[in-house]
Structure formats: structure tokens, C-alpha cells
């Protein structure tokens, strides 16, 4: 069934295309080149894992894809649309309509319950799943009315996953989603990501330091020093449940 979907989607435009993307931070005295010219295309519905040493520019790249940040030069296309040409309002709409984020630091709103944290996103989404269903998806149906401070780190991250998948985004951008979690909880989170990718055809980009996670990707892209060092294609994707660390 997985095979069928991939074949049917063969002649697509890429969901993301970047052209000679650079990002320079002008610090006091010395400039930091976070990205030094990145050219990349991501296919609709694929799962991509970004690897690379600390400071190699992964987060910067992801933030630009998500419309959170602007590159210093170069272009980014989302399907036909050039993101770099959009103004702030249009970028806001773009994020609202297409993108789901999962952050390393769960980033829940402390004054809202798990359910309300999900509702925060579904309320402004065009075609969301109910917050309750989204939380059930990550196995939190019993903790819906708890505040973040009453949840463990893994539970908080699962709420964050539920929150980002609930709007049925076209793209899921995850920055070290398992960074702060133990192996078992981390796998639960990865399974949730894998689930939306499979069932909704959501494109998923996952940054991680955990090379083991690369096994669940269609492609693994290694960053080094602001550039793409290598791209490898997995012939066989492993299900998330088969990964361990």
C-alpha cells in the first residue's frame, strides 16, 4: 500500500525547493555563517532526517522552511510559491495553513491544559481533527485536562505532537523531537510522526542527533558547516517501533 502511494505520486513538483540558501548572523565583530549555500528539493510525502554536528545549520534551515526566519540570500519555494517573496502576513497564513511544528523544548502554553493547547491550533486550522482525537492518537486521552506542569516531559512532547498533527498539516517540521526523551517515549513520538506521514501523506522533516532515527527516513541529509555534506536514500524504511537507542 505504501508502494502504491509512492508510485501514484511520482511526477510531482517538490514540496520544498531551496536555491543557494545562505544565512549570516552578524554578531559583534565576526559574522557567523549558519548556511553557506544550500540547494535541496524535498518530495511530497517523504520523510527526511537531518543529521549533522552541533552548529552545522540544521535548525536554521528548518526555521527558514517553516517561515519562521528569513534567509540572507537565496530562494525557498513551497510548491509553486516563493516563500522568500512573502510578507509577514502572508508568511503567517502560510504557517497557519500548511505547517506543523514540533520543538525540542515541548513549548506548551503553561496556562492551558493539554486539550486547550491542541485547541489553540485547531481553532485556526481549516480542516483539523478534534483535539480529543489528536490526543488519543498519541495515547493521552486520559490526561486531556492536565496542565503542562502536571505532565512528564514525554507526555508534554506527545501533546506537542498531537498539537502539530491535529491541524492535518502538509508539512511537519520537527527539531530534535526526542532530544529530551528516553528511548521508549521517544519512539512513541516518532510513531506518531510516522502515523501522520503514512495516513495523511504529510511531509516530515526531522532534525536529530540520533543516527538510529535515520533508519525511519526515506532520505537522510547530513549537514556540516552550513552545507549539505551528503544525501543518502534508504532502500528500506524501518518502522519507528523497530528503532532503539
Amino acid at each position: 500500500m505504501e508502494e502504491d502511494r509512492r508510485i501514484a505520486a511520482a511526477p510531482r513538483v517538490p514540496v520544498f525547493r531551496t536555491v543557494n540558501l545562505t544565512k549570516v548572523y552578524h554578531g559583534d565583530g565576526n559574522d557567523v555563517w549558519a548556511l553557506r549555500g544550500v540547494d535541496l528539493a524535498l518530495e511530497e510525502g517523504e520523510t527526511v532526517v537531518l543529521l549533522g554536528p552541533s552548529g552545522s545549520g540544521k535548525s536554521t534551515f528548518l526555521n527558514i522552511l517553516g517561515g519562521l526566519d528569513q534567509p540572507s540570500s537565496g530562494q525557498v519555494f513551497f510548491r509553486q510559491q516563493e516563500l522568500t517573496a512573502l510578507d509577514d502576513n502572508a508568511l503567517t497564513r502560510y504557517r497557519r495553513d500548511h505547517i506543523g511544528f514540533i520543538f525540542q523544548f515541548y513549548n506548551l502554553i503553561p496556562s492551558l491544559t493539554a486539550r486547550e493547547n491542541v485547541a489553540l491550533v485547531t481553532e485556526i486550522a481549516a480542516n483539523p481533527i478534534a483535539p480529543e482525537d489528536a490526543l488519543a492518537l498519541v495515547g493521552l486521552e486520559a490526561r486531556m485536562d492536565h496542565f503542562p506542569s502536571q505532565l512528564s516531559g514525554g507526555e508534554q512532547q506527545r501533546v506537542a505532537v498531537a498539537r502539530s498533527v491535529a491541524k492535518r498539516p502538509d508539512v511537519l517540521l520537527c527539531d530534535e523531537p526526542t532530544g529530551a526523551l528516553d528511548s521508549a517515549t521517544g519512539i512513541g513520538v516518532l510513531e506518531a510522526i510516522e502515523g501522520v506521514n503514512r495516513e495523511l501523506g504529510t511531509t516530515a522533516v526531522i532534525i536529530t542527533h540520533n543516527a538510529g532515527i535515520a533508519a525511519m527516513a526515506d532520505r537522510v541529509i547530513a549537514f556540516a558547516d552550513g552545507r549539505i555534506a551528503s544525501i543518502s536514500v534508504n532502500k528500506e524504511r524501518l518502522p519507528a517501533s523497530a528503532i532503539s537507542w
Partner: protein
Amino acid sequence: MTALNKKLFRDLWHIRGQALAIAVVIAGGIATLVMALSAVESLQETRRAFNEQYRFADIFAHAKRAPEWAAREIGAIPGVLRVESRIVQDIIIDVAEMGEPARGRVVSREAGGQSRLNDIVIRRGRDLRRAHPDEVLVNEAFAEAHGLQLGDVIHGNFNQRRRALKVVGVVLSPEYVYAIGPGDVVPDSRHFGVLWMGREALEAAYDLKGAFNDLTLTLAHSVAPAQVIDQVDRLLAPYGGIGAYGRADQLSDAFVTSEMEQLEHIAVVIPPVFLVIAAFLFNVVIARIIQADREQIGLLKAFGYSNMAVGGLYLKQVLLITALGILIGWLLGAWMGHAVTGIYRDFFRFPFLHFQVNPGALAISACVGIFSAVTGTLSAVRRAVAIAPAVAMTPPAPSAYRASIMEYLGLARFLSQTARMILRYIFRWPLRAILTVTGIAFSVAILVMSLFFFDAANRMMEVHFFETERQDMSLTFVDIRTNAARSNVGALPGVLMVETYRTVPAKMRLGHREERVAISGLDGHMQLSRLVDVNGRVVKPPPEGIILSDKLAQLLAARVGDLVTVSALEGRRLVRQVPVVRIIRQYIGLAAYMDRRALNRLMGEGDIISGAHVLSDSRAEPALYAALKDTPALLGLAVRSAALETFSEMIRQHLHTMIFFYLAFASLIAVGVIYNSARISLSERARELASLRVLGFTRREVGTILAGELAILTLVALPLGCMAGYGLASLMVNLFDTKLYRLPLYVADSTYGYAVLMVITATIGSAWLVLRRVASLDLIAVMKTRE
């Protein structure tokens, strides 16, 4: 409710203490505005209705003896609507229950008929009856002060004859809403009464058949009083006219006007102070919340919430707090308005005085409140809107502490670890430290300003009763006398010292400016009634020239060396040029002083006196009073102890109410500012403090860091606040500057002391509230959350 709104309300609930503190400060401003504007409106409306319904005159004139046809001539002046001639006479009244004599003003009334102008409201009893010449109506304040019942009898000295008068009615008049006796500082309803009597009885008593000595008139709309006044003066001059004047100089009406002006000043000055502080608190508190919410804001924007939605989140919190403040302010303002109106009912005798909250005032106050709140928060909210969504993706950066002055000066070595942490924190956010200091200083300043009104009133009392008017009583004669009368006064029982004086009603002119004033001619000795400068030194009028009070000099634009034109309004009515030799600061009324001999020369008269100041033996007081009650030549009598009593009573009762409000508000401001500041530094450093606790610092040590910071900021703020308070006091002095009185710029040391003590108490209270939170700091929760 949307999730975003839930967040809004929960966040608001989380800062409810701070929110309430800000709301109360806003309420202070709003309440003052509502109270002042509504009270002005109520007074204005009441006065307008009373004056209109009872035909309060526009112009008033007094003369010695004018024939009735002169009134008809005045009636023919273009612009004059109605004229009424009458007899008005000051007399000595003897009320049996009171030892000392009282002063009275008798006003004629057409018996049985209806007075055309300045009509009266009969509160109790009935009107005068024809052919009952001994019936009188008395003003309500006097009747109440003496517990006079209908049918009671009082005595009066009429033109050297003592008469029994039967009280048949108790009344109010638009002319005596504020019934202040001649020369009095505050109304003394026990010692000054207004009586209405049949015209014929007075005509007979004062030999004024077919004549009058007082006249009032109304003007057609849009007729300027000044021209008519000039013509009335010209027509009455041959008959001893002492100068007509309009409502602006009618004492009772002028006091009501002055009160309304003060309320207007209050409305302009006080609310902005409160609202500026509220705006400042909003700015600090919201900026702090936004700082703490940075990641959440980034997150919301990452999810696709618009700038409007994010900014609105904070603006709505501000507006909700403001709305609460406005609501409290409205209620409080209405309550204060009622309280203030209660005071006015004592002061001003209107037949009705209802406090009504003015809807305009509500609307204006709400607008002003919202405006100040939004202004205070806009920059912080704009910062929130500008936060990049990428912030949500980055880990929290540790607060960037930098080397401060402390390090540059090498001070750090000398300080304990705790002291260093306190100072670094203060220098880390110097702007916030400055704002906190400003806020605390403001509350000190408002306290100083509120208490200053007491100081000023007490100082006024001291100057008037202890430095200037030191005589036990002042006598005014029915007529001017030669100085020989002095020995008659000296012969009265218990009189220890006599000091004579002369007063002359006059018009004083310089250039195109003109003022009516009584010129006092002082004897050289000045042991009793003295002229004293600001430094408490006695000033002797020189043999030539005139001394002006500063307000009179200001109104005439006169400077030392100028020649003013003095037109005497009695005797031979000579017009002379007199050089101004000195200008002297005075707090009550308008005044001009000359040497008595010089004044008599100016009048072209001999050694004349019009009254005497007396020092008496208190043991002989009953005998002296009895003698005075029987002295037909006596026109007026001012007893110092009674005046002093009334004055301090006024301070005690009436000033207290107003000042109570401001003390309460100033304390609330102090608590609001200090509590907010302490809460902010607690939440800002919860993590740091919790870390210290985890590292093994005791609660006490951690508490010291917070309390120490507050203590330092408060200590810096106290002297600044005292200075600002002095500044506000001098602003008040400038605002409360009328012909009737000025405030002395005098702030007692005890006022500073009290203000400082109040603020220190507020600091300790706030510190205590916040330190309780340190005790309950949830170490795990603090370390677990990102912020």
C-alpha cells in the same frame, strides 16, 4: 471560549494581585475626575437654579442715604432690567444663650409683599407680616447654630436703640449661600447672622423714610456689568455710594465660584498623576509579562496566529484591568462626590443640593483611563508583536549580565555575595529600577502633597491669628470717631490695651486696572494687629506711601515705586496718587496698608479712627461682653477666640474628608508600585532564586536578595519623593490662588516624616507579601518549566 481567550483569563488571574493594584491606581484617578467634574456640575446647576428662581441680583451697591428717585434713575440705565432699593445695616445682636455679642446684617424686606430680587426661601415658620415691626426672619445657619425656635426673641442694637426681635421664620437666600461675616476668614454662623426685617421698621430706625442705603439690580442678557457699575457709581456718589460691584465680587457667590474653580483644578491636576502612574505600572508589568512570554509568543506566531491576535492578547489584558479600574473609579467617584457634597451642604446653604453623577464625567474619565492605559502599554505590546516566531525554536538564553559600574569602580570586592547580586540585578535593568524609583517617589510626593494642605491651613491660621491678628477682639464703630474715642474703649471693663485703626473703602487704579479694597490705616505701635512679612518680621507702614498685599499688586500689575490712584469712597471722596512703597505676601483677601495719620491726611481729615483692637483680661470677659452688648456706637465685633475656633473646626472637619481620600489613594499607589515591583523581580528571578535554594541557600538568604533590592530602591526614592512632593505643593499654591485666599508654601517636617513612614510601611508590607511566595517557591516546578 477560544483557547487563546482562556490563556488570557488564566494569565490575568495569575497576576490578579498586580492587576488589582493597577486597577486601584486607575480608580483613584477616575474617581477624582468623576467626583470633581460631577460636583462642579452639581454646584453649578444648583446655583443656577437657585439664583434664577430667587432672582439673585447682578449688581450690588451700598450708599449712605440715597433718595428713592435715585433708584428710579438707576432703573433707567440701559441694560438694567429690575432695580430694588433696600436698607441693609450691620448691627450688634445679643442672643441670650451666648455671652459675647454676635454681629448681624439686617436686610429690609417689603412686609407682606414679595421681594423682587434676592428673594428668600422660607424653611420654617412664615413670612413677615405688615404692621409687626419687631418680627424678623433669620438665616438658617445662624438659627441652627443657636438652636433658635420660632417665637424666640433676640435683641439688636438699632441706631443706638436696643430692640427685641421675634423670630418668625428661618430662611435661605441666594445672597448668603456662603454667609461669611465682614472681615472673617471662614463663615462663623454662631457669631454672624443675617436678619430680614420689615422695610418700614428699618426706615424708622435709621431715619430713611423715602430713602435707601442699598440697591441691587439685574441686567438684561449680554449686558456687561462694568459699564452699568460705572454709571451706578456716578449716580450714587453724591449719596455716599461706596462702589457697586458685580457677582464676581459678591462674597458669597465668589466663594461658590472659587470652590468650583478649585474642583476644576483638582480635576485637571490630580487624575493625570494617578493615570501616569497607572500607565507606568502597566508598562512595567506588561513588558515583564511579554518578556516572560517570549517563547509562547513565538509559538503562537509559529502556529500562524496573526500579529493582531498576539498583540490583542496583551492589549485585552490591559483593557480588562483598565475596565475594572474604571468601574471601581466610577463607584468610588460617586461615593466621594456624595461625601464632598455633604461638606458643601455645611458650607453652602442651598435650598437643595443633590449630587448627581455627571454622565459626561463618566465618559470622559473612561476615555482618559483607556487612553493612558493604552499609551502605557503600546510600546510593550509592539515589542510583543515584533517577536520573531523563530524564538519559539531556540532554547532560552541565560540572562545576559554584564560588568556594571560596580565592577568598574572595583566596588564588588567590598560587597558581600548577596549585595553583589542585588546590585547587579539593579544595574542589569537600570530603566526598570529608575521606573520603580519614580513610582515610589510619586507616592511619597502625593502623600506629601495631601498632607501639605493641612500644613498650609495650619500655617495660614498661625500667620493670621498668632503673628498678625493678636488682639482678643476688634471693634468697629458705627461712625468714624476722633481719636478721643480711644479712651472710651480703654475705659471698658477688663480692657488692657487699645490700638486704634482706620479703614477706608476705596477704589484703587493703576493704568486700566481697578480693584475695590479697604485701605487699613495702622497705628505705629502695632503690638496687637501687626503687619508681618514672610519672615515673621514686623513691617511698619512708612509715614508716606502705601503697602499692597501681593495679590492686589498682581491684580493691579503694580510694582514698588508705581503711583496708584486711590479714590476714597467715603468722606470727601478725594482722589489721590499714592506711591507703592512695599509689596507684602498675604494669604487672605486683598489688602492695602498705610500709616493711619497718612491715611487721614489722604482723606483730608483729622485724627480719625473707625475702630479699635483690644487686648482684654479674660477674667473680666463677661463684664466686657455685657458692656459691649450695650454699646450703641458699636457696629461690629470680631472675637479672636471664636474665629480661631471656627477656623480649626473647618480644618478638622472638612479638610479631613478630602485629605483622607488622597492619603488612601497615595497609600494604594505606594502599595501598587512597590508590590508590583517586588512581584516582578520575584518572577523574573524565580529560577535564579530557586537555583540558589537548590544550591543550599536558606530562605532567609534568598529573601534578603529580594528585600534588599526593594529597600535600596525605596531608600533612593524617598528623598526624591520628598522633593517632588514639595514641587506638587508649589503647583497647588499656584492653582489655589484666588482673590479670596492663597495657600502658603509651607511643608512641615512632620509631613515629610509621615509620608516617608507610610511608604516604608507599604514597602515592608509588600515585601512581606512577596517573601511569603519565596517561602513557597516550588523548586521542582520552577526548574521544570522553561522560564
